[in-house]
């Protein structure tokens, strides 16, 4: 599986994502700087975590207007898999690739801890290796992860099975509506999630729970 990671000024989880992708796919990802105009021909494009542009204006807002985003939208429209983690999720919502918005955490504080995630559906290319309903561990580290969508949009994404991951066992760290931790677009090729699966992929991390997401993508490619 060929992959690429987009890097913005202020991205800081790009190297974690690089490591995870290389370890699990066996192929070195390509790094793409935000000012470039075209993405390489790959099976998966990842928008990593961090604090692009220092979270100025709104988290992800400036990065979502970067030159490379034009081609990311085109690639997403053509069916290429796109994964946004943490700041990457914020960027994908700001770019209009995913519905809703990520607002300041309900508790107002930055949260850096482990949460429990429920895989709501495994009928996606991002979650096929999970059991439906499987509860797994995953780290979070964010200040603006409070998912919000208006009532109509929320009903639509719930009814369409676009909610892929929910916080489980009362571990919702940010006040997200319906405990939403990760959603995908209607077509099922773009997924955004606040937790960091790339940080729980080898024994040194204290667990392997996050691997299943990358193994699902590997199987789908």
């Amino acid at each position, binding site marked *: 599986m060929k992959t690429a990671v987009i890097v913005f000024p202020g991205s800081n989880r790009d190297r974690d994502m690089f490591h995870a992708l290389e370890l699990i796919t066996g192929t070195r990802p390509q790094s793409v700087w935000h000012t470039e105009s075209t993405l390489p021909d790959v099976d998966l494009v990842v928008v990593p975590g961090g604090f692009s542009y220092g979270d100025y*204006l*709104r988290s992800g*807002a400036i990065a979502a*207007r970067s030159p490379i985003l034009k081609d990311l939208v085109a690639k997403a429209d053509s069916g290429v898999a796109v994964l946004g983690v943490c700041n990457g999720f914020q960027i994908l*919502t*700001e770019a209009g690739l995913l*519905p*809703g*918005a990520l*607002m*300041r*955490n*309900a*508790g*107002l504080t930055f949260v850096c801890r482990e949460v429990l995630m429920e895989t709501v559906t495994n009928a996606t290319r991002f979650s096929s290796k999970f059991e439906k309903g499987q509860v797994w561990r995953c780290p979070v580290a964010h200040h603006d992860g*409070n998912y*919000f*969508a*208006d009532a109509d949009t929320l009903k639509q994404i719930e009814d369409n099975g676009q909610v892929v991951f929910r916080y489980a066992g009362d571990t919702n760290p940010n*006040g997200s509506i319906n405990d939403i931790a990760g959603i995908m677009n209607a077509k099922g090729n773009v997924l955004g999630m606040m937790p960091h699966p790339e940080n729980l992929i080898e024994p040194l991390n204290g667990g392997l729970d996050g691997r299943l997401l990358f193994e699902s993508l590997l199987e789908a490619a």
Partner: protein
Amino acid sequence: MKARVIVTLKNGVLDPQGKAIEGALGGLGFGDVGSVRQGKVFDVELTGSDKAAAKAELEQMCEKLLANTVIENYAIEIA
């Protein structure tokens, strides 16, 4: 030409920062505060002199960047 853009959260969108400010004002003894909503102000200096054109351009700026219309409303004032 000077313009001011005011971006506010839509009704029904929870504003935890506004709530915290509201609580702090109560703590300072301001007993009359019903509620507080936090927003943003942008002062934009434009080089043109056509107000109608400026307003149209500012609307585009709001739609494309200054506001996230999923959660925010905007108002434009031109001096």
